[in-house]
C-alpha cells in the first residue's frame, strides 16, 4: 500500500514542477517583451526616416538612403527585423529603396556570413533576407542550408532559393525531399515554381530521378508552370511509371497542360481495373483538359461501380461545356440508367445551386 506521506510528497513535487514551468514561461515572455521594447527604443530615432524613405521620391530618397546607410551597428541591428518584414510587404519604389539600402550597408554580404551562424534564428533570418533581396550569389550557400539541422532554417532556405536561385538549385531542392532532414514537398514545389522558365529544363531532368517523390514533384511543377514541351514525357510517366503517386501527379499535370497528347493516356488511365485514385484524378483531368472527345468515355463513367469515380466524371462533364451538359441531361432523363442518372441529376442540381449563389454574390457586390 502507498503511504500518505509518499502521495503528499509526489503531489508537492508535481506542484513544484508546475510552478517552476509557469515561472519559466512568464520569465521567457517577460525577457522577450523586454528585448522587443529595447529594440523598438533603439530603432525609434531612425524609424521616421525609414518610413520617409519608403514614401520618398528622387533626390529626397538618395539623401535619406545615405543617412540611413550610415547609422551605427547597434541601431541597424535593432532596425533590421522591421526592414526584413517590410521587404516582403512593399513593392515598387519603396521596395527598390529598401534593396538599395541593404546594398549600401553591405548587408547582403553580412547575411551570407550569418548563414554559418551558430544561432538558428540568425541563419533563418539571413536566408530570408537573401531571398527577399534576390541575392543570386548566395544560392550555393543556401543550397547547403537545405540540409540544416533546424527545420525552420531549411524552410527559410527553400523559400529563399525560390526567389534567388537558378537552374543549378533544382537538383539540391529535389534531393532535399529525402532523408531525416527532409523539406516538405509543398515548400519545394513552391520554390521550384518560383524559379520560373529558366529552370524548366533542370526540373524536367527530375522526371528521370530514381526517387518517386522527386519525379512526382517535378511533374507537378511542370504541370503548374504550363511547360507544354514536356507533355510527352509526362504522358509516358502516366503510362509507365511503377509508382501510383507519380502516375496520379502525371494525370493531373496532363489535365492542366491542356495538350491534345494528354487525351489518350488519360482515357487509358480511367479504364476499369486501374487504381481508383488514378481513375478519379484522370476523370477530373479529362474535364480540365476540355477535350470534347472525352465526353463519351466520361458519360460511361457515370455508372461506374465506384461512386467517387462516377461523381468526378459527372463534374468533369460539366467542365466540358454544352456537349458535356447535354450528356448529363440525357443521363439524368434516362431512368433505366439507375446510379448514372442519379449522379447526373446530383451534379446538375449542384451546378444550379452554385449558379444561384454566384448571382447573389454578384448582386451583393454591385
Amino acid at each position, binding site marked *: 500500500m502507498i503511504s500518505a506521506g509518499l502521495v503528499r510528497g509526489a503531489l508537492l513535487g508535481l506542484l513544484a514542477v508546475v510552478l517552476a514551468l509557469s515561472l519559466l514561461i512568464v520569465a521567457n515572455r517577460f525577457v522577450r517583451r523586454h528585448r522587443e521594447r529595447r529594440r523598438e527604443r533603439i530603432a525609434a530615432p531612425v524609424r521616421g526616416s525609414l518610413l520617409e524613405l519608403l514614401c520618398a521620391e528622387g533626390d529626397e530618397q538618395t539623401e535619406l538612403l545615405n543617412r540611413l546607410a550610415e547609422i551605427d551597428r547597434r541601431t541597424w541591428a535593432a532596425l533590421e527585423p522591421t526592414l526584413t518584414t*517590410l521587404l516582403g510587404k512593399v513593392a515598387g519604389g519603396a*521596395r527598390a529603396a529598401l534593396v538599395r539600402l541593404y546594398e549600401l550597408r553591405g548587408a547582403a554580404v553580412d547575411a551570407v556570413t550569418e548563414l554559418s551562424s551558430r544561432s538558428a534564428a540568425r541563419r533563418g533570418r539571413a536566408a530570408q533576407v537573401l531571398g527577399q533581396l534576390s541575392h543570386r550569389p548566395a544560392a550555393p550557400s543556401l543550397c547547403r542550408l537545405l540540409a540544416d539541422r533546424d527545420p525552420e532554417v531549411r524552410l527559410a532556405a527553400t523559400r529563399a532559393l525560390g526567389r534567388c536561385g537558378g537552374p543549378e538549385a533544382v537538383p539540391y531542392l529535389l534531393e532535399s525531399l529525402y532523408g531525416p532532414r527532409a523539406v516538405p514537398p509543398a515548400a519545394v514545389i513552391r520554390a521550384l515554381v518560383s524559379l520560373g522558365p529558366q529552370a524548366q529544363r533542370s526540373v524536367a531532368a527530375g522526371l528521370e530521378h530514381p526517387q518517386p517523390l522527386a519525379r512526382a514533384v517535378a511533374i507537378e511543377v511542370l504541370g503548374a508552370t504550363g511547360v507544354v514541351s514536356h507533355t510527352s514525357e509526362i504522358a509516358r510517366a502516366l503510362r509507365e511509371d511503377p509508382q501510383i503517386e507519380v502516375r496520379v501527379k502525371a494525370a493531373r499535370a496532363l489535365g492542366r497542360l491542356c495538350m491534345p497528347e494528354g487525351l489518350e493516356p488519360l482515357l487509358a488511365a480511367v479504364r476499369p481495373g486501374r487504381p481508383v485514385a488514378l481513375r478519379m484524378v484522370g476523370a477530373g483531368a479529362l474535364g480540365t483538359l476540355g477535350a470534347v472527345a472525352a465526353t463519351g468515355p466520361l458519360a460511361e463513367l457515370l455508372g461506374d461501380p465506384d461512386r467517387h469515380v462516377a461523381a468526378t466524371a459527372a463534374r468533369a462533364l460539366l467542365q466540358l461545356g454544352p456537349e458535356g451538359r447535354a450528356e448529363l441531361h440525357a443521363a439524368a432523363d434516362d431512368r433505366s440508367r439507375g446510379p448514372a442518372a442519379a449522379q447526373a441529376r446530383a451534379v446538375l442540381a449542384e451546378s444550379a445551386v452554385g449558379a444561384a449563389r454566384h448571382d447573389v454574390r454578384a448582386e451583393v457586390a454591385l
Partner: protein
Amino acid sequence: MAHVLIADDDADIRDLVAFKLTQSGHQVTAVEDGMAALRAARENTVDLALLDIRMPGMSGLDVCRELRAMAQTATLPVIMITARSQEADVEVGFAAGADDYIIKPFSPRELSSRVTAVLNRVER
C-alpha cells in the same frame, strides 16, 4: 483632406500607411484590431476605412459587415488590404461590402492613389 481609419495588426504596415496618408494631407486614425476599428468608426466622423482582412479576433471582413449594418457607417467607403496568397479573400471582401482592395506587397504611392480614387468616386 479626409479622415482615414486604418486597422491593421501589423505595426510596420500600420505606421507606413499612416505615414503615407498623413504625408498626402489626410487625417489618420490607426488602430490594431477590429474591435478598436468599430469603436473608432462610431466615435469619429470617418471618410474612409482601410481594413486588413486577416486580423486576430474580429477580421476586416467582420468589421466591414458591421460597418455596413450600422446606419452611421452604412455608406462608408472601405478598402481591404490582403496578402497575395489570400487573393480568394477579395471576392468575399466585395461580398461583405468592400469598395476596393489592395494586395500586399503594395507600393505606398499606389495605396495613396487608390485612397484618392475611392474618395473621389464617393464625392461625385
